[in-house]
């Protein structure tokens, strides 16, 4: 027997849960402005998330998927991207979306049952949130193909969860990206759970990073609670992609501290102790500590940040709550460049009965 191929999966962490460097820190970690920006956004994201859950509880928002505990993974990904790159997220990566310039009001509108939430004023080319799991991996590959064909210096990034790595579309996307050396980065945010299915029951592969081997592209596992690790490796992957070296898979290991969504009750299927243990290694603690150890952060700044964040979130919520319902016609008028004449009767019918059939909030 002859060995004809071999592979290694590496793991990277720079900051340990206490915020102490656990490896030679990369250049990025010495740029305190970058770190502070990211930390602030992580905090804002968490404040936003808490508020959104409250809005749902009080009947002012629909079902909502919390991002609690994912802030480093989400912000780290987007912070590594350039504005004219394109993101194809799934449905809970608010840290990434906010970093890309999506507004909180837009996110709330989406979960509040209003399509205008996906009409981002900021990142006009980013894909909207994607509910059908792993389908967006193919959109990212397609976007990357467009960039490659046009000779543009741009990359696409998709994000899906651990659960999404069981879907065929995930592998198909990696395979075409490998075959064509597409400028795309596939992010898997492994938060250990796909609703009630723990990662061990999803797959026999010990890491999700190794799934890259099937596509002949590099795969790496990083500590998804360490924003330095996430951003560093996404930056490296994007650099490779821009150099024409093709796609990468990055697995960011984190934990879903919340229920799956506000419609879920995770106490049915997982132990509180597991959640508590995960809380001690969550991503905000360590970067905050690191910044404090660097002497660039303190209690006062923290208080001010929290206050500012609350104000920002409140303003966004106000704007959301005061957004009138979309017009009835809007359900027709964006279906095609032009609504077909022969279907105009349906549109008129809807307008005639507008608002007569119960009502959703607002």
């Amino acid at each position, binding site marked *: 027997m002859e060995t004809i191929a071999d592979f290694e999966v590496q793991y990277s962490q720079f900051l340990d849960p206490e915020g102490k460097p656990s490896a030679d820190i990369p250049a990025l970690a010495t740029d305190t402005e970058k770190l502070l920006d990211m930390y602030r956004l992580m905090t804002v994201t968490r404040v936003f998330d808490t508020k959104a859950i409250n809005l749902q509880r009080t009947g002012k928002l*629909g*079902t909502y998927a919390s991002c609690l505990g994912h802030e480093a993974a989400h912000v780290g990904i987007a912070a590594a991207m350039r504005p004219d790159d394109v993101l194809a997220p799934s*449905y809970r990566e608010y840290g990434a979306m906010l970093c890309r310039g999506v507004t909180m009001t837009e996110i709330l509108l*989406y*979960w*509040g*049952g*209003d*399509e205008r939430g996906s009409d981002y004023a900021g990142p006009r080319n980013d894909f909207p*949130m994607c*509910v*059908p*799991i792993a389908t967006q991996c193919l959109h990212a590959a397609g976007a990357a193909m467009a960039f490659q064909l046009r000779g543009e210096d741009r990359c696409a990034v998709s994000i899906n969860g651990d*659960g*999404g790595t*069981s*879907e*065929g579309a995930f592998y198909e996307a990696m395979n075409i990206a490998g075959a064509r050396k597409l400028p795309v980065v596939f992010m898997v945010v492994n938060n250990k759970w*796909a*609703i*009630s*299915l723990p990662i061990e*029951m*999803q*797959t026999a592969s010990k890491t999700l990073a190794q799934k890259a081997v099937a596509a002949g592209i590099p795969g790496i596992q990083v500590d998804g609670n360490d924003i330095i690790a996430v951003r560093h490796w996404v930056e490296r992957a994007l650099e490779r992609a821009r150099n024409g070296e093709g796609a990468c898979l990055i697995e960011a290991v984190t934990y879903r501290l919340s229920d799956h969504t506000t*419609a*879920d009750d995770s106490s*049915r*299927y997982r132990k509180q102790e597991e959640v508590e243990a995960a809380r001690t290694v969550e991503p905000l603690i360590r970067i905050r500590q690191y910044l404090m150890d660097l002497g660039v952060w303190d209690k006062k700044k923290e208080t001010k940040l929290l206050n500012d964040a609350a104000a920002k979130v409140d303003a966004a919520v106000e704007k959301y709550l005061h957004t009138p*319902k*979309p017009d*009835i016609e*809007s*359900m*027709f008028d964006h*279906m095609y460049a032009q609504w077909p004449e022969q*279907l105009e009767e*349906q*549109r008129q*019918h*809807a307008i005639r*009965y*507008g*608002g*007569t*059939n*119960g*009502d*959703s*909030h*607002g």
Partner: protein
Amino acid sequence: MAEVTLIDALTMAMAWELEHDPSVVVLGEDVGVNGGVFRATAGLQKKFGVDRVQDTPLAEGMIAGISIGMAAQGMRPIAEIQFMGFIYPTVDQIINHAGRMRNRTRGRLTCPMVLRAPFGGGIHAPEHHSESTEAMFAHMPGIRVVIPSSPTRAYGLLLAAIRDPDPVVFLEPKRIYRLNKQDVEDNGKALPMDVCYILREGSDITVVTWGAMTFETLKAVDQLARKGIRCEVIDLTTISPIDYETILESVQKTGRLVIVHEAARTCGVGAEIAAIVAEKGIYDLQGPIRRVTGYDVVMPLFRREMDYMPSVGKIIDVIQESLED
């Protein structure tokens, strides 16, 4: 006898069959420990074990494909797809394999599986969680499509679907999962598929509907009854193959037909019913066949979803219009 909701009745039916037929297996995303996102399988894994009630990885095409493989080798899988918006990765397996395993092997291998999925709007659900695309499955030869609209029918029809030697796509109107309760005896008695159920007898007009829309329709009809209008309400129930005899008989009596469904209008199942009556019952008709349906648009997110749906008001108006023909 127990007062149960539609979803309880489904759980009861699965429990009965798991108990009585060792070849029955329940599988799907979150159906085990969690008991299903709608709790249709609540308690089943505890009672029957992890072999009989299995949580699967997240891949609908896989769920359909392994179910076909199991069914062809003598099991009776009941697979749950979490929402109809996620049923599309199964389409290839369902149309290319489930619906033709028996035919292409001349009966050597068969496919006694049930593919369950909640469908329909009106529960303020997120994007992709409110679709009604039963017509796509109704167009597939070799596939039965069944939709219950009451706890009693849910129990009896799910039993029938599981026991059927051929594949059944069993669609559950999630909006009425818990809307009302009925006394359902847990006696393992199946109800017949392939037939319509008449919910109201009447002689003025025939209204055919199914799923959650039976409720809108019955409300409309009850209001009209106060004006002395007697509607015959037929719950189609088995969407394919269609029991058109019952519909034709009714139209023969009433001379008028309205069809109500939540799915988009174009090429919905309503079209097939209209087409059958326009062929076989046209001389009984006193006027146009009308459809009250969802529009030919993507189901709007929930702030506008009710404006998409056939409402009691829309149904009443169309019935009244039909009566003026």
